């Protein structure tokens, strides 16, 4: 919901000056008005409404420029003379002209034909401002002339017709009590203006914004730039991830297709799901290195951790050791050399050690022990192979 309101503020001494001017003139008077126009948008949120917006337009009249006589800046057809206007407003900024006024005695509070035409033409000449027209009509209320009355109204063009606007007269100061004044005082004194102008640059920038606000604004801009850069990076990385995921999906699809093909080709050779797969290269290497230890080629252990010889691999896999496993041959040859040299030195020691071990084992071993295992133990004494 939107609400529009316009108010004209006129200080008491400006009104008094207008009245004084007319009292001392024996005819109607007219002139221009100088001031400032302030627009404010207030958003009011209540429990019942969250979108109540008030557009407040306040026109402060600070001064009036008197014309020496009526009809001074327009002709009989009410066409404005721009040169005369510039001459009248020579001491003021043209943007500060916010309207004009007329005072006529003993007439009604209604705009005349000429006033409407002049106002229309002034609006065309000064389009940057919403101009107002103030009409003051003093009159005698008694036949003896003892009591006089002054009526005043502000008129503003609202698009289709002229409408009257409330005029608020300030006496010696602002009548409304507020903690924060939203509007500047009407017609500030010259000395005040000079003091403010002298120290203004410390607090305000060239565009009349507070300096801190400008700094915060700059920082905000920098943060926004950084965020923008980070967003761009994230976007790039996300796109890369997306591309990689697409590649992975393609590869997976290719692999699954290949597997299906392979499965279709090898339907008779598939083993039981639970049968473990044999590492044929390892089996061939173990056979080459430890030909007398078939238990090393088993894939199944008992609960106690001993190899089960019934499932040892005894098949020839047809692996060409010199070409496929050349390091195994080198190692085997090195072992043989060390063995022959060791045999000469420790033949006696090994015989005595071997006899005591046998005796201990006979006492400790169970009935289930296989003679193959005894043989393996002996073999283990002969080699440096790890003991299971």
């Amino acid at each position, binding site marked *: 919901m939107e609400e529009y309101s316009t108010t004209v503020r006129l200080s008491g001494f400006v009104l008094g000056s207008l009245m004084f001017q007319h009292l001392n003139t*024996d*005819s*109607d008077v007219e002139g221009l008005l100088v001031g400032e126009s302030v627009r404010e948008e207030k958003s009011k949120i209540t429990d019942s409404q969250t979108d109540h917006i008030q557009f407040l337009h306040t026109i402060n009249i600070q001064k009036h420029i008197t014309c020496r*006589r009526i009809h001074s800046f327009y002709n009989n057809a009410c066409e404005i003379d721009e040169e005369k206007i510039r001459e009248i407003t020579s001491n003021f900024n043209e943007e500060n002209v916010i309207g004009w006024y007329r005072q006529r005695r003993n*007439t009604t509070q209604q*705009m005349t*034909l*000429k*006033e409407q035409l002049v106002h229309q033409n002034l609006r065309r000449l000064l389009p940057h401002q919403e101009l107002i027209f103030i009409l003051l009509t003093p009159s005698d209320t008694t036949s003896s002339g003892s009591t006089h009355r002054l009526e005043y109204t502000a008129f503003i063009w609202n698009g289709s017709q002229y409408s009257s606007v409330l005029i608020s007269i300030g006496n010696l100061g602002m009548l409304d009590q507020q903690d924060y004044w939203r509007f500047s005082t009407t017609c500030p004194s010259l000395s005040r203006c000079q003091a403010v102008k002298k120290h203004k640059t410390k607090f305000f920038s060239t565009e009349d914004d507070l300096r801190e606000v400008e700094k915060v604004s700059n920082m905000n801009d920098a943060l926004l730039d950084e965020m923008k850069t980070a967003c761009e990076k994230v976007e790039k990385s996300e796109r890369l991830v997306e591309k990689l995921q697409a590649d992975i999906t393609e590869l997976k699809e290719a692999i699954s297709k290949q597997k299906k093909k392979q499965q279709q080709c090898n339907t008779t050779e598939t083993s039981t799901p639970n049968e473990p797969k044999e590492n044929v290269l390892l089996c061939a290497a173990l056979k080459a290195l430890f030909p007398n230890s078939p238990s090393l080629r088993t894939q199944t252990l008992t609960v106690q951790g001993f190899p089960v010889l019934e499932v040892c691999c005894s098949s020839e896999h047809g692996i060409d050791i010199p070409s496929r496993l050349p390091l195994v041959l080198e190692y085997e040859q090195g072992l043989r050399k060390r063995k022959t040299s060791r045999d000469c030195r420790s033949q006696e020691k090994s015989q005595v050690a071997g006899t005591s071990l046998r005796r201990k084992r006979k006492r400790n071993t169970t009935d289930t022990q296989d003679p193959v295992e005894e043989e393996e133990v002996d073999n283990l004494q002969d080699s440096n192979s790890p003991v299971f």
Partner: protein
Amino acid sequence: MNSLSPEVALSRISPELRPLLCSVVRNGRVGLDSTNCLRITDLKTGCTSLTPGPCCDRFKLHIPYAGETLKWDIIFNARDPELPPDFIFGEDAEFLPEPSELPHLVAWDAGDPDCLLQLVKELLQQYHQYQCQRLRDSSRLLFEYDSLLEDPNYGRSMEIYAGRKNSWTGEFSARFLLKLPVDFSNIPIYLLKDTALDPGEDVALLSVSFEDAEATQVFPKLFLSPSIEHALGGPSALHIPAFPSGGCLIDYVPQVCQLLTNKVQYVIQGYHKRREYIAAFLSHFGMGVVEYDAVGFTKLTLLLMWKDFCFLVHVSSCAGCCFCAVMITKTHRHALN
């Protein structure tokens, strides 16, 4: 409202402006209803109360228009009498004429006594255009206006006043004032000659009020200048027919016009017939005529005798007809001697 006589008004006006107002109050007949002059009221001054009089330079001008009276404020400045006046158009706040259509405003000549009167006439023309524009709110009334405008007998002598649209009911009213093209020049002068009555132009105005935009409530009224009304036999002599339901002005107005014309012709013919009638009596009983109405030919008295019986014969007729009433008064021969 203090209505002032022209002399009083002129005496209070600022001397520099007096010639302008003199022309308005003495010769100020504008519009169709020229029997009513322009009136001036509420004379005020724009000078301070310390200024010695006469210094009035602003007043209210009453202008008859379409059966209404417009009250326009005219504002001069006594200290600047060469400047053109300003106007406030009363309740018609939306009326804003173009200055280019007001040559007497643009080229205001304070030395020309008729300048203000001419300016008022130009403003009235613009006002008439403004009222015609307002008829566009009702297509029915606009049709009535357009159809009358096409007829040269009525289109040039028409005033329209469009009332305010009622914002509650949406009703829109208007009044048409038409000058009927009836020739009153042959009406016997003795019927029109009456210094007590308005000696102005003889005119017949037909006012038709539309109380609603759909023309379901239409009230016509015929206004005659006082002399014509007297000539036709008074206010009750002529009754116009009621506006027919569903009818339109282009049919009704000629009907009223014809009725009025017939009445006027009847009066004229009656006069001529009476004159001939009296002339015949005079030629036949020339020596016995005692007296007769030589202006209106409404009365004739004859003194006749038959076998020593003398009697007076009074023949009379009303001004509007040829009907003759005869009265015989018996008298004795010796009384005559």
